[in-house]
């Protein structure tokens, strides 16, 4: 495939028409045809549904029969009594996740790096990765089995130790704790992969030099490994900050229950509740609000990462 300006037998060097490229690369266009059709139908056609956040949408009337109401739906959503709690909870749960789930993989990666016995390292890694592969339903169901007040093994151990049963999943404050703890547990192993890869790429000479200077293992970790993976940590942190308006609906749905609405009412949960109440317009507007903020945050964090001399995400 010669570059187009190197083909002298063609009448017009430089700019070529669409027909030329189509004749030359029709096989490639055929290859992207089906994926693009899929993209158009299932992604871009779906965007048209966003229009109902500006309509007083009734299923029976359809897009065109429903009345255009401008920003009334958004006003209704933003003044709804559940909106601010949902926004607060979304931010709260994500910030707590960031504070507690973020450092754990770094610590574990640094510790795993210190393990010299191969079998122990690979066996414990295999075990640590397990929660990443299971669905949130399974994890939620397991959580109810472990943390139940009457039947949960944790509470029966507490009771046999003479303590009071703790409503891990049934009272608001404890639910928050359990939600965050399960998040830490689920991500701690899988998150180490990126950091372990970064540690592997560090120059072994640095450790040699540190040893010559008399640094012990702890000092090597602190002054060689940790600074070595700092840029990875920064990028991961920025990526997490970009997701602060997101959050998994599947996770919260699997872990929440009717007893703990105080912290478990997040934006995706509210979208689901309103959907079940047939409030399609409100539900769409709320989802759109979350998407837009989410995209803006990703862009801002990408700019941030690039300014710090990193690759960025986009």
């Amino acid at each position, binding site marked *: 495939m010669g570059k187009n300006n190197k083909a002298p037998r063609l009448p017009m060097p430089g700019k070529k028409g669409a027909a030329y490229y189509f004749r030359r690369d029709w096989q490639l266009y055929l290859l992207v045809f089906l994926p693009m059709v899929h993209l158009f139908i299932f992604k871009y056609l779906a965007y048209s549904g966003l229009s109902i956040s500006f309509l007083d949408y009734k299923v029976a009337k359809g897009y065109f029969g429903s009345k255009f109401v401008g920003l009334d739906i958004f006003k209704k959503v933003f003044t709804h009594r559940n909106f601010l709690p949902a926004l607060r909870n979304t931010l709260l749960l994500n910030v707590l996740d960031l504070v507690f789930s973020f450092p754990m993989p770094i610590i574990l990666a640094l510790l795993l790096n*210190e393990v010299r016995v191969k079998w122990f390292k690979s066996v414990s890694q295999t075990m640590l990765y397990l929660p990443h592969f299971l*669905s949130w339903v399974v994890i939620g169901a397991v959580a109810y089995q472990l943390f139940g007040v009457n*039947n949960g093994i944790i509470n029966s151990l507490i009771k046999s130790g003479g303590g009071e049963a703790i409503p891990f999943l049934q009272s608001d404050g404890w639910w928050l704790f359990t939600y965050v703890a399960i998040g830490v547990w689920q991500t701690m192993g899988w998150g180490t992969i990126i950091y372990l890869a970064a540690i592997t790429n560090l120059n072994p000479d640095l450790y040699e030099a540190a040893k010559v200077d008399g640094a012990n293992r702890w000092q090597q970790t602190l002054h060689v490994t940790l600074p070595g993976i700092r840029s990875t940590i920064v990028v991961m942190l920025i990526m997490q900050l970009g997701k602060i308006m997101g959050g998994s609906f599947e996770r919260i749905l699997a872990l929440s229950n009717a007893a703990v609405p105080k912290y478990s009412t997040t934006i995706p949960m509210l979208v689901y509740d309103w959907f079940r109440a047939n409030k399609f317009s409100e539900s769409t507007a709320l989802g759109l609000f979350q998407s837009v903020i989410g995209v803006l945050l990703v862009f801002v964090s990408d700019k941030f990462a690039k300014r710090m001399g990193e690759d960025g995400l986009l």
Partner: protein
Amino acid sequence: MSQIKSKQVVMNGETFTINKRGWTVSRVVNYIGDAIIWIIIGVCALSCLIPFIHIFAKSVSEEAAVVANKVFLIPQGFQLEAYRRIFQDASLLRSMYVTVVVTIVFTALGMFLTVCCAYALTRPDFKGGKVCTVLIMFTYYFTAGIIPDYLLMNNLHMLDTWWCLILPLCFAPYNLLILKNNLQGSIPEDLFESARLDGASHFTILRKMVLPLSKPILATVALFYAVGRWNAYSDALYYIQRRTDLRPLQLKLYYLIVAATESLQSDAGSVQVMTNPEVMRAACIIFAAVPIICVYPFIQRYFVQGTMVGAVKG
């Protein structure tokens, strides 16, 4: 591979230093440090495995022992009644069947679209490739949201059909990105050029050259699709409302255990109804988790690889 190699260099260096010093204070400190590291990693790793051993023990124990909270890790009074009932329950088996069929078709279709698209987008002189990439990645960062997706499914008359579980998600931008990034680096451009000069069509190059040379990354992406589809349930929660026979396993488990709004079909006409649902629930969790638990030790290295490829440019 390179991860293990360079690790060994570091490790060998470290071992070497320790041996040279002999039995000294620093060596004792080293051993204590090792012990602490092993304990922390061991506790974290066991915390990922023990819940599942506990639930398995519960699922095969006598009901009385479970109710009395006597079962921890070792089954008390072995029985398989719960599993016998699961395999008699038509709705659970049906859910398993739905999940298996959907996962297979979803993965096959997704791989077809992703491979075709990724190959075309890696050709450097493919006019319009950039536009396609931008169009695809835009949908990765800005999603329409679940309600517009739901309305689209409604308009396409796909609600409560097999297709709503297969088609909407079967072409994933993230997986495309992973495959594209990997194809770009792995095969030298000269090979393509000479194949084209020899008169090979793009289809032939894709089939005879690209696919055989990139088996590991193809396995990775296929597993991303398969495990993702197997574990997801929020789309089915929205799309499958009337046809209860089309509920995938994870959704079935959600209704059975997390929401606890349903009981097993076999409960209805059964004479020996178990008084306590705990054993049955434990067995259902194991039933749903076992396929993944069985395969994940073999597939985890592909996931690790894919995660690292994705992290290069996410």
